[in-house]
């Protein structure tokens, strides 16, 4: 598969692995510039540039695979390295500050590949996992629907059996970059006459399949990263079903677990101190310096607050990960981290806007770090909506971590066909 030095016992130690990764990264990857892609989903690339970036991500992934550095914690039988989370952490540390195949991490490696590993048939795994590790397949979650928001199990997308195939109809939304992706992991309703969770089935399908119409969604700041897919009589063979018929929620529960855990997943490369796609405390300093307000005690207080929130987050996430690993904390404690991250990100965005002062309302191209911070502020809530709302995280923390009574759900125990669905659809 690939050539790499291993320890005397045949297992590459973390430090050996780290040294090998470091050498390869420095030789092959471009160091990032300071603050590359700072801000909240800024529309900085043309479509051509975006496609080129996707191609580069695939290229890096392939090169990593060839160098024996891909799929660090994936099983060797599907092309992975079969190493430990400690190896992945070492890799994360070494790749920090360098380009990496960011678009393949989430949702391709987790939750999609993680779900395939857990529920896929041997054929499915052999068909897709190696292709994923080589950068040949980028996967998307066909999960959210316009009508269902946080209530993902209320999917209206319907799959009807037709001989050896299934015919899918419906619409999925909030897929990141479906227009340049290859496969979708899709939750569909196969039975309307049982309660919500008991009539679902999971399928996989090529996004290029006949009947799949991918529409890009324009966000308020002009970015078109997200898509909505309209599926009309899409034919999927039964061999592309994941898990049992009508038992999709068994898959879905783990799917959502992997989604929640994706930032700390051993399948995912996530550089430690990446300032990408966010506003970090160093950016706050730059805005303050750029607007000449770094000596203003009010501004210094705001910078300090941002830095404190960031340092606390950096302490919190490892504590939660350790607690979940050792069983001292509930597996659901990941929702605590999600809640913290969301609240922290919206606060940092607000702080940036406040430090920018008048440049938050209107800015010139040469305003430096303060430029575009007003537009970031408009996008502030994406940090508490995307990837599961903070409201859902608070439900999880109170109900699953603290064991408080669950919210009354009027759909519980009721055939899904009869559940009230209100007068509107949306996102």
């Amino acid at each position: 598969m690939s050539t790499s030095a291993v320890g005397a016992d045949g297992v590459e130690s973390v430090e050996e692995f780290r040294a090998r990764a470091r050498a390869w990264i420095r030789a092959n990857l471009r160091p990032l510039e300071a603050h590359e892609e700072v801000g909240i989903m800024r529309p900085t690339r043309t479509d051509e540039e975006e496609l080129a970036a996707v191609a580069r991500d695939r290229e890096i992934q392939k090169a990593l695979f060839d160098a024996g550095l891909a799929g660090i914690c994936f099983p060797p039988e599907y092309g992975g390295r079969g190493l430990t989370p400690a190896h992945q952490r070492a890799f994360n540390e070494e790749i920090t500050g360098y380009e990496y195949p960011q678009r393949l991490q989430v949702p391709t490696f987790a939750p999609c590949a993680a779900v395939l590993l857990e529920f896929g048939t041997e054929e499915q795994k052999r068909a897709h996992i190696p292709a994923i590790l080589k950068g040949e397949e980028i996967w998307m979650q066909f999960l959210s629907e316009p009508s269902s928001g946080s209530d993902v199990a209320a999917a209206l997308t319907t799959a009807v059996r037709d001989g050896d195939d299934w015919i899918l109809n419906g619409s999925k939304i909030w897929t990141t970059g479906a227009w340049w992706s290859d496969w979708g992991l899709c939750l569909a309703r196969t039975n309307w006459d049982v309660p919500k969770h008991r009539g679902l089935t999971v399928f996989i399908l090529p996004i290029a399949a006949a009947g799949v119409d991918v529409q890009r969604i324009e966000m308020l700041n002009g970015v078109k990263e997200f898509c909505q897919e309209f599926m009309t009589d899409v034919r999927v063979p039964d061999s592309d079903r994941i898990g049992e018929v009508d038992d999709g929620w068994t898959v879905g529960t783990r799917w959502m677990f992997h989604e929640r855990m994706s930032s700390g997943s051993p399948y995912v490369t996530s550089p430690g101190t990446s300032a990408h796609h966010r506003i970090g405390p160093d950016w706050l300093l730059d805005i303050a310096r750029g607007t000449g307000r770094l000596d203003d005690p009010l501004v210094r207080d705001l910078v300090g607050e941002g830095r404190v929130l960031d340092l606390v987050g950096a302490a919190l996430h490892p504590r939660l990960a350790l607690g979940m690993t050792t069983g001292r904390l509930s597996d659901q404690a990941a929702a605590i981290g999600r809640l913290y991250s969301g609240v922290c990100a919206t606060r940092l965005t607000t702080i940036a806007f406040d430090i920018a002062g008048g440049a938050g309302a209107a800015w010139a191209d040469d305003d430096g770090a303060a430029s575009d911070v007003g537009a970031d502020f408009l996008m502030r809530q994406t940090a508490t909506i995307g990837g599961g709302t903070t409201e859902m995280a608070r439900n999880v923390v109170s109900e699953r971590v603290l064991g408080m009574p669950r919210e009354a759900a009027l759909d519980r125990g009721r055939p899904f066909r009869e559940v009230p669905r209100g007068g509107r659809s949306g996102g």
Partner: protein
Amino acid sequence: MLLELTPDQEVFREATARFLADRVPPEVIRRLRADPAGFSPDYWSAGAELGWTSLLAREEHGGGPIGDAALVDLSILAHEFGARAAPGPLASANVVAHALSTWGGEAHTAAVEAVLSGESLATCALGEPATPGEPAGIRVQVRADGGDVVLDGTARPVESAAGAGHILVTARVAGAAGLAQVLVPTAAPGVTVTPMRTVDLTRRFFAVGFDGVRLPADAVVGEFGEAGEQVERQLQVALALSCAESVGAMQTAFDLTVKWAFERYSFGRPLASYQELKHRFADMKTWLEASHAISDKATAAVDAGAPEAAELASAAKAYIGDYGTELAQDCVQIHGGIGVTFEHDLHFYLRRVTLNRALHGTPASHRARVTGIFENLKEQA
């Protein structure tokens, strides 16, 4: 907005509301994003016919209020502008009409009449509000030179400067402590107008450079070097209108979101049945009523030239700045992903409150102003 309008006020409001609904419905606003001016000239002149620019001007210039309190009437318009995220430099144009009509001389009559009729657009560069004991954020200098005045420096952001015939510029008098206001034709040699970017879809801002811009002395509005008080009055007018507009935008965002909460179901229940959301709606309703209340009170005080006008205007600006954006962002949050899409209307109102929060001084700068005024008040007591 006031809980009760007079019949005249209601007629006035309704005319503009109908006009805006007809001329700039949401799909038009979405398209106007690409318009360099943010609106068409005939939109503005038709608005002027509805009285958008004349309320604060004297009758001899073709202006005049519809009731006893011109600024209160105008704030009803501003509220409607906010509620519909309407294009157009309502506050800037009215500040100019008010300033020229009140403090201007013979030389400004033609300009004020053109502004009132909507034939020509004028805008202003007021600078940031001054905190007691602190200088205002004004970066244009003016000096007298023979019978002329000469301006140097940069003013930003100036609304609609590219489309305006004149800019009422507030400048520091070189070598002295005072301020002067000068009506500068945008066509004057030495004036450069550079577009800026902004959070709003239809409002346009510019950095205006003045490089040795020489004008006759009668371009000066009011007394040269003695304009501090008139600038403060104009700033209060701008703050009052900006607050009324933000409250209008808050009201629409809130109403949209209440409606959504009743119609949208999750887990078989409408969002409006979830206690945590209900309590956030209760907080938002409180912020909204409080914003209406302080906006109206500040507007009435500014209109009356009351001693508490400065403090109330800044209190309104600080409160509505903070809670206006919090309310709009919470509306986005409750909408979920659809609330951050371009196709949804919600961001129109988020943009408007965001713009107004950072324009004419941030909430923090107005809190500092309030503290200074309050401190002086207590020392005098």
